């Protein structure tokens, strides 16, 4: 197989995969490119050759003004693309099922709930009872399952080096399964345009050893800042995570915002809010008139309102 077409400078993306999903995507990209070449290369080669052979100024081929069909040629013209598409269709079908973002990549994946806000992500670890803003820490080699929603407009979460993207939409959840095969750092981002701070909506993903992971979780669990409906409402104000630190009065703390999970049902409560009340410009995060004091979260409902997977 060939290398990626250009390697002048290296950004973090699936061209340098950190996990099995991205690696398979890269492999599939090369396969698709090569297979399509069967149909594309003849055009690239034939165009200059035909133009040269039949140029009016000095032609070397016979003039056949009424030649308009040829059965063999015709069947090649239809046959080759049909063959290529059939082959690719089979591979497309298999790969789509193999890399289904809903498919768990190991037993008992680490569950993480994700809430997209303008312009930051909250990662909730329900089992550990902690939450991180704009930082995702996962143990190396363990399957992870993200369950996503947003509390503003539609967003799309992608960690290119590890896994592709999935939309996060208000009032419903989507899932993204992945696994980081080696230790390292990757950038995740929102790819769906969400307004002025869109380009800053990035987060760091750390794939660390199991011990480091445990240690980090312990450290966060000792934190004095709790994610409750009140602090959540402040986080929901438009702005980056750094700007949110000001309203949370933790400007002096370095690194990402770390919180213990004050309200274990906060994710479910965010999901529920769109089903039981009419949103107003004051209560809707993302609206220019959003006011954190006038945006109460309702009680959690029994089950998530709508799961995209049908």
């Amino acid at each position, binding site marked *: 197989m060939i290398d990626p077409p250009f390697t002048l400078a290296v950004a973090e993306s699936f061209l340098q995969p950190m996990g099995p999903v991205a690696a398979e995507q890269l492999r599939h990209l090369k396969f698709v490119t090569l297979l399509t070449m069967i149909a594309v290369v003849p055009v690239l080669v034939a165009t200059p050759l035909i133009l040269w052979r039949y140029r009016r100024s000095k032609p070397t081929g016979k003039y056949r003004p009424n030649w308009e069909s040829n059965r063999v040629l015709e069947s090649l013209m239809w046959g080759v693309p*049909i063959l290529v598409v059939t082959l690719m269709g089979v591979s497309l079908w298999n790969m789509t099922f193999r890399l289904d973002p809903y498919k768990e990549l190991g037993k008992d994946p680490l569950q993480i709930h994700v809430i997209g806000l303008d312009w930051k992500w909250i990662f909730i670890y329900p089992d550990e009872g902690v939450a991180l803003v704009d930082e995702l820490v996962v143990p190396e080699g363990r399957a992870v399952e993200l369950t996503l929603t947003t509390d503003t407009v539609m967003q799309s979460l992608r960690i290119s080096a590890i896994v592709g993207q999935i939309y996060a939409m208000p009032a419903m959840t989507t899932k993204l399964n992945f696994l980081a095969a080696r230790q390292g750092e990757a950038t995740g981002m929102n790819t769906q345009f969400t307004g002025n701070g869109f380009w800053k909506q990035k987060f760091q993903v750390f794939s660390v050893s199991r011990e480091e992971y445990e240690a980090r979780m312990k450290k966060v669990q000792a934190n004095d800042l709790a994610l409750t409906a009140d602090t959540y409402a402040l986080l929901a104000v438009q702005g980056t995570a750094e700007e949110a630190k000001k309203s949370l009065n933790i400007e002096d703390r370095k690194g990402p915002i770390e919180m213990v999970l004050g309200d274990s049902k906060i994710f479910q409560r965010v999901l529920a809010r769109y089903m039981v009340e009419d949103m107003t410009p004051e209560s809707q995060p993302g609206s220019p008139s959003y006011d954190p004091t006038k945006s109460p979260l309702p009680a959690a409902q029994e089950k998530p309102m709508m799961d995209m997977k049908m």
Partner: protein
Amino acid sequence: MFEALFGRLTWDSIILVQEFEDPNLNTFITAGAAAMIPLGGALVVALLFWMKWWKPLFEWLTSVDHKKIGTMYIIFAVIMLFRGVVEGILMRVNQAVALNGGFLSSDHFNQLFTTHGTNMIFFVAMPFLIGLINIVVPLQIGARDVAFPKLNQISLGLTAVGGFLIMISLLVGEFSTGGWTGYPSFTGRLINPGVGPDYYILSIGISGIGSTLTGVNFAVTIYKMRTAGMSFMRMPLFTWTALCTSILLIFAMPPLTACCLMLGLDRYLDFHFFTNDMGGNLMNFINLFWMFGHPEVYILILPAFGVMSEIAATFSGKRLYGYVGLVAATMCIAVLSFMVWLHHFFTMGQSTTVNAAFGIATLLIAIPTGVKIYDWLATLWGGRVRFTTPMLYLCGFFVLFAIGGLSGVILANPTLDYQLHNSLFLVAHFHNVIIPGTLFGVLAGIYYWFPKIYGFRLLDGYSRITAFFWAFGFILTFLPLYQVGMMGMTRRTVAYEDPALVPWMVVSGIGSLFLGLAFTFVLLTLWRSVVNRKKLMVPLGDPWDGRTLEWWTPAPTPEWNFAVLPKVDGRDAFTEAKAKGTAYRPIEKYEDIEMPANTYYGLIIAALGSGLGFGLVWYMWWLAVICFLGCIVTVITYAFLPERKKTIPAAEVREIDEAWRRAARESRGVTRDDECNEANQGLARPDIITNP
């Protein structure tokens, strides 16, 4: 009182005022753009007075002649293209220097990509193609006009309303920042209470109705107005693609109208179609939008394919290879285009089976598209290829479109779309099919048919340079975007933080300047050609040794197109007549020709539609109500007014037609060697073909 009169329009809404209140680079750019509207308007008015062009202007604006309406579509498209290109350059140059922030503010940049997309799709590409279809189709099928000439004028008027709204948003208020796709809830009332999304909904909604009517008009024209002997399988390929485009317009525009209506109800009347809350569902908008959006892609590309077919045959002096295959492929594409809309959102989380099925349906489109390209190549095989400007565009198209097809096939794989969706790879892909496909097709078509309608050729040298700049600029601007897209850069970012992206973005920014140069050369070509038109005249009407009916008339084509409607008994009717020597035979009998007279109908509807749109955007309810009622009254009034026709007496038709035929019989014509010389008077002398 003020509020009742002006709604939410205040003094501060006017962009030029903002420049005085808060002078900086961004307001300077917007104010400069805004100032162009009154200044440009004043210049045009002054020119009209100076040259005493009022009368001809109204002659044009009230005309129902399909050639004039087509021309107005194209002029409109060129004006909008100017804006689109400038916006594109601003964005590309900004991104070239946008490591951690460029010179454009986020808000300005967001409006730029929204207007650029909306403008280029709805007010450049579509009017260009509809303009060409207007000009060419009635001539190709041997008709004197379209089926519903007044309706044609109204379609143009409604398109102009959309253009007016998007232009006036430069001067008053702001346009949407939600991208040309305008997904809610970002464009919903709660998140975006301003006028931007309203401008967006109304401009594409109103012009969309015009496009639907165009589709109806041309489908009926092609079904019902073909001349004797012009059976379906004898129609020129461009007419076939126009028919498919019309069918797509008829069935694909309603979803757009519907989703604009629903978003409008959400925004104006607090409905809950696409809101976050109370059972609203933004996924419905996305589905509806792409049920329109995907066929739209083929509305844009099919007529360009048609132009390529005509050019391939004419400029290689040969029959079109695989006519039946090309027709079948066109129809396949048209039908399949309705079955793939979901590939625009593989990443929404729906079931894997759905994704895989739509992915494979998308791959299927690659088959007929591939066949078409092979057919055109086979058309050149065995021909005598002349490297004229249209042929240059065709060659560029072959090579570049193949790359666009490759990236399309890549994106059709849901697996890969999970990575590449929303990235600059996608942006590169659709520019790669729209510029070498649609734009090259349109420019080649304009060069090809220009002498037919206006009587003189475009200057050859300038046109070649233009073609070169478009291709070169395109390669430089968009091929790097494939790479940065794979490196993870998303679309619609005003700035980025990864230094590895810089070199690619700089190349792309420089490329965009070449695209600007290419646009300048379009205007330059036009201007120099008009100045030198005496030397470029082709009054006998057949400068390229054409094969189809449209070349069988003088140039410029008279208002009535054909003095006597031609009879057709084969595919390349004109070529056969020329071979038999019967093309310019005298005609015995001429009859009076009845043509529809000029009317103010379309102009009135356009004015009232603009008022309606503007009134709705700014909550000036009185204006909206008056204009809406005005539209109804206009329609009813015209239903009662007697239908005015003008009759061209047989004697006048005879005089003009006989003079043309006599001149053609007496002229020696030129061989294809002198095609681009002054000697070319529009009569083709049989070529001497030597075989090696």
